[in-house]
């Protein structure tokens, strides 16, 4: 037996390292100032998919939805060991909430088809919602296992999975196909393979090739594309016209939730009482707390 896995990955702003310069005076975030990174739990998801392939056979194809720049992420996936990559990109998909995002993803996954597993990170660090995985599974009409830690075994069209729950874990048996959302594990994620970096560093999407022709007018897009395909270095792109989607359900317009207001977090009043770190200072503090019936 062999199993085909599709892995959903996302390039996200590095919210863990937000500095003062990134915040605009109105309290909103200047996304352009933030470095884009591989969403950490998506990397764990890819690693787990590669483990399943290496142990039980099959293929791993990574998919990302995002701006043209997200192709960077797909190359990183190829360096890690993914067999194939695909970009979903269209301005019409922009501004989507989790419901509209999962709608497009489900349509794209249906079109790609032939999958036994769909992997994704539990959540992305830009929104921390953990919603897109379950919503995609629902739309595909397949079961989900969230908070996945390990795939223990795959046999006879069923997977045995360890998932985390509050205060413990469960062992699940799921009939394939199944969608798994993966927690950041304790084990180290495989590094890029030098050989694969050499092999795939020139893998390009059609939009990246177009950019190239703009910079060098002697290049012809058709030739470039054919050349990349022949060398297995062409990353296909799915756009709105490739999918059977209702425009009323995609992008900002197709999103039921809207951002009404954004504000920077306001600090509380800074009028605190200074206590000297001396016996007298601390003594008066203890007295006050005793009077307030907090102490004693």
């Amino acid at each position, binding site marked *: 037996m062999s199993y085909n896995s599709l892995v959903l990955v996302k390039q996200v702003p590095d919210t863990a390292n937000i500095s003062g310069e990134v915040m605009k005076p109105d309290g909103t975030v200047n996304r352009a100032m933030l470095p884009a990174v591989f969403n950490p739990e998506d990397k764990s998801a890819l690693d787990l998919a590669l483990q399943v392939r290496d142990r039980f056979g099959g293929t791993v194809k990574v998919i990302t939805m995002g701006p043209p720049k997200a192709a960077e992420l797909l190359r990183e996936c190829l360096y890690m060991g993914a067999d194939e990559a695909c970009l979903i990109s269209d301005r019409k998909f922009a501004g989507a909430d989790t419901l509209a995002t999962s709608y497009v993803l489900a349509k794209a996954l249906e079109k790609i088809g032939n999958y036994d597993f769909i992997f994704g990170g539990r959540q992305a660090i830009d929104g921390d919602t953990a919603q897109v995985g379950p919503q995609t599974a*629902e739309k595909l009409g397949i079961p989900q296992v969230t908070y996945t830690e390990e795939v223990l075994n795959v046999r006879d069209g069923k997977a045995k999975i360890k998932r985390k729950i509050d205060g413990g874990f469960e062992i699940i048996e799921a009939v394939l196909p199944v969608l798994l959302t993966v927690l950041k594990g304790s084990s180290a994620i495989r590094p890029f393979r030098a050989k694969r970096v050499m092999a795939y560093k020139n893998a390009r999407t059609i939009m990246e090739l177009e950019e190239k022709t703009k910079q060098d007018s002697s290049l012809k897009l058709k030739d470039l594309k054919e050349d990349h395909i022949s060398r297995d270095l062409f990353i296909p792109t799915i756009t709105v016209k490739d999918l059977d989607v209702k425009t009323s359900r995609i992008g900002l317009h197709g999103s039921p939730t809207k951002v009404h207001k954004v504000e920077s977090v306001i600090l509380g009043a800074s009028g*605190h009482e200074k206590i000297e770190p001396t016996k007298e200072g*601390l003594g008066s503090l203890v007295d006050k707390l005793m009077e307030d019936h907090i102490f004693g």
Partner: protein
Amino acid sequence: MMKNKKHEVWVFIEQRFGKAADVSFELLSKGRKLAQNLSGTLKAVVIGHEMENIAKETFRYGADEALVVDHPDLEHYNTMPYARVVSSLVDERQPRIVLFGASFIGRDLAPRVASHTMSGLTADCTELKISDVKYMRKDYKQLLLQIRPAFGGNILATIITPDNPVQMATVREGVMELLPLDTPVDGKITKIPFEPAPEDELVKIIERHHEENKVNIKGASIIVSGGYGMGSKENFQILHELADTIGAEVGGSRAAVDAGFIEHQRQIGQTGVTVRPKLYIAAAISGAIQHRAGMEESNKIIAINNDPEAPIFDICHYGIVGDVMEVVPKLIETYKAKLK
């Protein structure tokens, strides 16, 4: 659709081994206020087996009605049957608001239900309120404002679901206040029939390993909490000593937990536990937004830090600038002397 009908606010009541989660009752307490604002009713959605007691318990937190789906197959939470049950209830009855705990169960269930019913869903809200809203030059009456930190807690976003009939949100445990009523509502129990379906069998839970969380940091009236600035697990010992002296629980910031100074169940902050004790002592905690989100509603806050510029001093009531390893032993000594 909603013209002649009273608005309904629903809370999904999650349970493990026949015990309801605190977060569900906290959400009923919040849901009651929201229902009052909407002049509507509050309903608890109770799913499991032998759920009579839990259904009755919901009346103590203000539910006017408990919709009970009781069946042996539903004894333990499982995504497919639970999502099917909640989705069909939402489709049939069109509540205005549905709230779920942002727990392992709620975060597994809510998105699946929202997807099926095509409802708006906002995760991890820290505040919920009803308000009229003007959005894109249109006036909307009585929308649910879903307020949540975003971008790693650096901004606060207010999310609305203007054009969909059902607004859904998840909230973490401890964020909303638990407000039991002196006199429970004389509520109604409505039994909903359940038919097993073949798809319920796609995922089977074959082993369960579950331990009750023994740490009750949420219920502590005093919390002594340490940050990365404590420097080591050994130094953290002084906080345990202070806690023992004054009768407190010990907590820690995410950085302290990540550094291994203290166990994960004691992490306080947006990604840990939210607490509101009578007194919170923050030792060597700088006061990042992610930490403040979990403790700033404490009644009184004492900050001890050797950096006078640390943001924790912006939200504390009493600030002590100094080295924790000197200040804390002195505080223990002073306290003991006063008690004599």
